[in-house]
């Protein structure tokens, strides 16, 4: 079946450093991806999305890179802040309506 998986379950970074969270997906037909942030006790919050016809998309302090050749995408957070501490999920959509979520990476920002 479809799957997306994050490379590392946990990541710790110093405040002010850049963070990179990686995700791999299995279905080469996946055509749309979303990164979500989930804080404790809350539902996932949309961060940024990217379609398969793009390689890169930038938002405010965040950049998503998509490498379709190796079926990999990454989320880069610039100047990481304590408020960025959360679990980050990538989710993929392939040719239909069902999103497949990864298991998440827990980001801890050290002040």
């Amino acid at each position: 079946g479809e799957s997306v998986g994050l490379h590392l379950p946990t990541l710790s970074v110093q405040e002010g450093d850049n963070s990179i969270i990686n995700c791999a997906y299995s279905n080469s037909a996946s055509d749309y991806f979303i990164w979500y942030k989930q804080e404790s006790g809350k539902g996932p919050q949309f961060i940024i999305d990217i379609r398969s016809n793009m390689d890169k998309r930038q938002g405010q302090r965040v950049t998503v890179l998509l490498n379709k050749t190796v079926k990999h995408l990454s989320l880069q957070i610039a100047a990481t802040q304590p408020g960025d501490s959360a679990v980050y999920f990538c989710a993929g959509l392939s040719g239909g309506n069902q999103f497949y979520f990864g298991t998440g990476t827990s980001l801890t920002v050290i002040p």
Partner: protein
Amino acid sequence: EAGVAQSPRYKIIEKRQSVAFWCNPISGHATLYWYQQILGQGPKLLIQFQNNGVVDDSQLPKDRFSAERLKGVDSTLKIQPAKLEDSAVYLCASSFSGYEQYFGPGTRLTVT
């Protein structure tokens, strides 16, 4: 703009009991999703509605789970009877376009 509302926020029941969750999506969002999120995992789609019709319920355990979305707005998800492995957070999300989804805060269910 009001977000996705869910209730209750927490529920504790004994196995074999029944439970129901309620979701009110963002106004104007035709697509509604119910997800199950087990601790330490990503959300897993249980059912997806487009207006009041079911688009995908392939991962819904239909022997015990049911969901409805009357009038294409609010939705309820029911579990009857509950099992220990149903302990999870149940998330409701809605979408206008079928792409970007907005999630509610979830209902944390504990089955003892």
